[in-house]
């Protein structure tokens, strides 16, 4: 038990938590935006892979880091558009389309990677985002290293949370997005194009997901591996429910999961031979299932989530 307390007191643990949480924040917010508009986006796992590959590839081919992030976001938006065409405009099953997008997007990413780098045996590397120490604040004990010695993309992730909250809850366009997820007929009756709002939300949300993927290859690591996203997209889908579709709670949930993940890595090292390491690998997922059971019972789903809207159809 004291091992765990020791872990919690190290700056390294908190720094790792903040690093692990960054892609989850982008992914969760992206999924949250889609679902607030009434569209479940299970393409997230694939779209994060696309972001991870395309951002990294951009930099590897000579682009700079920030345009790489932008490129990844654009690629995410393109796959978001694909998802929206099928689910919003053609009213196909959001589950099936989402899984299809994930399979297609991941495979395409690996294919493009192999096409462009056919001879690479060991994965080539780029120079990723470097940690920026915020003057003064980074000298604080524990918090300094954990919060204020991170890469620019991490700062961006933390900044994006209040921004998404503000747009969703304080601007007219945010109201239109939320209303589209609650009652699209009401949106239509007020003269706003539901299909456009939903398409836009899915594209923006998917761009967020892709940036989350790009974080993994451009800030956390410096190379692109197969299977790199490793289920983080699915965790984001669960986190959105855990968060009751609220950005602030999404940050909280993501931190909780990231913390568990960071503990897991350290517990593996300290527990040694007594407990097989697979047990620790499993921990964050078990904990998130338990948290979901507690939280999800009380949540209010967006009422029009998964419900396609067909204009002019008899109600």
């Amino acid at each position, binding site marked *: 038990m004291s091992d765990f307390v020791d872990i919690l007191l190290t700056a390294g643990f908190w720094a790792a938590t903040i690093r692990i949480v960054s892609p989850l924040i982008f992914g969760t917010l992206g999924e949250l935006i889609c679902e607030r508009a009434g569209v479940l986006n299970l393409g997230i796992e694939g779209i994060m892979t696309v972001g991870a590959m395309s951002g990294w590839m951009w930099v590897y081919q000579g682009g700079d880091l920030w345009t790489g992030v932008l490129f990844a976001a654009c690629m995410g938006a393109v796959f978001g558009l694909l998802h929206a065409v099928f689910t919003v405009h053609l009213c196909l099953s959001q589950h099936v389309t989402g899984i299809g997008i994930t399979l297609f997007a991941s495979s395409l990413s690996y294919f493009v990677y192999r096409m462009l780098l056919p001879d690479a045996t060991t994965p080539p590397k780029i120079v990723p985002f470097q940690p920026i120490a915020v003057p003064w604040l980074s000298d604080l004990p524990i918090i300094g290293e954990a919060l204020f010695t991170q890469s620019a993309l991490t700062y961006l992730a933390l900044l994006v949370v209040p921004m998404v909250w503000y747009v969703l809850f304080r*601007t*007219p*366009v945010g*109201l*239109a997005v939320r209303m589209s997820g609650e009652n699209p*007929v*009401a949106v*239509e*009756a007020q003269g706003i194009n539901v299909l456009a709002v939903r398409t836009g939300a899915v594209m923006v949300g998917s761009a967020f997901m892709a940036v989350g993927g790009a974080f993994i290859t451009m800030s956390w690591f410096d190379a692109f591996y197969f299977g790199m996203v490793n289920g983080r997209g699915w965790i984001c889908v669960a986190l959105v429910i855990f968060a009751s579709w609220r950005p602030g709670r999404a940050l909280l949930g993501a931190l909780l999961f990231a913390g568990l993940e960071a503990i897991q890595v350290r517990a593996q090292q300290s527990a040694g031979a007594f407990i097989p390491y697979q047990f620790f690998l499993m921990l964050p997922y078990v904990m998130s299932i338990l948290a979901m059971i507690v939280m999800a019972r009380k949540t209010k789903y967006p009422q029009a989530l998964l419900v396609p809207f067909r204009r002019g159809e008899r109600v």
Partner: protein
Amino acid sequence: MSKPPVLEFRGVTKRFGTLTANDNVSLTLQQGEVLALLGENGAGKTTLMNILFGHYQADEGDILVDGDVLASGSTQAAINAGIGMVHQHFTLADNLTVLENITLGTESLWSWRQDQAGSRRKLAAMISDYGLVVDPDAMVSDLSVGERQRVEILKALYRDARILILDEPTAVLTPQESERLFATLQSITAKGLAIIFISHKLHEILAVSNRIAVLRRGAIVGTLETASSKREQLAQLMVGRTVTRPKLSAIEPGELVLDISNVSTAGTGATELKAIDLTLHQHEIVGIAGVAGNGQGTLADILSGLRKDFSGNVQLNGQMLDAGNPRAIVASGVGRIPEDRHARGVVAAMDIWENLISEDIRSDEICSAGFIISGSRARARAEKQIEEFDVRCKGPDAETKLLSGGNMQKLILARALSNTPSFILANQPVRGLDEGAIAYVQEQLLEARKRGAAILLISEDLDELMTLTDRIAVMSHGMLSSALPTGERSIGEIGLMMAGHADQGHGDQGHANMGSPANGH
């Protein structure tokens, strides 16, 4: 010379496939008047208004607002032209506040902040101007139906509507709420707005309108001044022929059939039952009045075997009801006419004969060895039922979804009544049907009553209950009043009880209050 009309329809025609929903409709609306649009269900009233509001595009004809042609198929254009619509099914988002529902779409989508203070001020002024009291910060899910309707009206007025369309606005209101709505409409027209009031209820239309346009099968069959029109004349115009609804004849009630005593379901919500008592006898139709969502559905679910988590006793012909077992319940002599034909009454994608046998697939008549259904025998029986109940269709192999509402209901009647049930649960059996079909369904129920069945009729239409029942009980917030002989309570009294006021003035010992738990057993 009279002023030019604020709104004019010129030869509007709309077709859905082979069905002509609106046939060359021409109409005018003057400033400050209430024009009633009268017609049966399916006459094309809502379609016409959906064309006006840009939900549908007309195939022919134009709509003019203040003399200018309105762009067709654009809701935005309709709103900009000053048209506001209160839909029959409210278009509100439950999980958002009143203010959010009202201000959606009124500000530029790309502005960086909402002018909450400004919209609050404007809304407050309108609330006091028109007497449409509602809390701007309340969640829509917490509002009563009457309040939701006020939000809908405010939504239209907030966008500076000059023409207000109300589609069947009283369908969900108690009589008192309707009165209040009519008063609001007066204050709205006094400010120079024009209103189109859609309904198929004659007494309302006569009470609220200045002029009446009657729509039948998509075409205008008459436009009359309200002051000089008679109820009978309007009914004749609307239906196209004289249809008389059947009347109750006096029959002495027989033995006890259904005995519901002290039935409650867990929870405190409006739909949860609170210590309900009710008895039904042979040759008796007992009506349950109430606004939708006050527990009628829960009671219906229990009696049809869809729920078993309740306390208390339900006895049918002296036997305990086999709760939660629909097949046993049907076998013990219950005929069920569910509230929602499409969702629960039939499987629309299956054939007519399949739907007709769905409640007794194991009867020896159609089933061999307990599990082999004989298609030929089932079809033969279906053909007999189709003929007996006058289901208009191509035959037993036709798809059920192709049936009109009235014929679908006849199919359900055929299934429910064929094995002469001793108890019939009729939940809103005539909702959405045209006059001819209504008369038919009611005749069938009366026929069953004469034969000796006990019938529980759940309805939101007080006129129907007044003419068709022996006794009426009122349901509100999951509580059921005593069932008094029809006529002992006036429509006004029933209306008050529907709104949750205690039953007063009728000393039926032990049940004087709305079945309050304190009177339990």
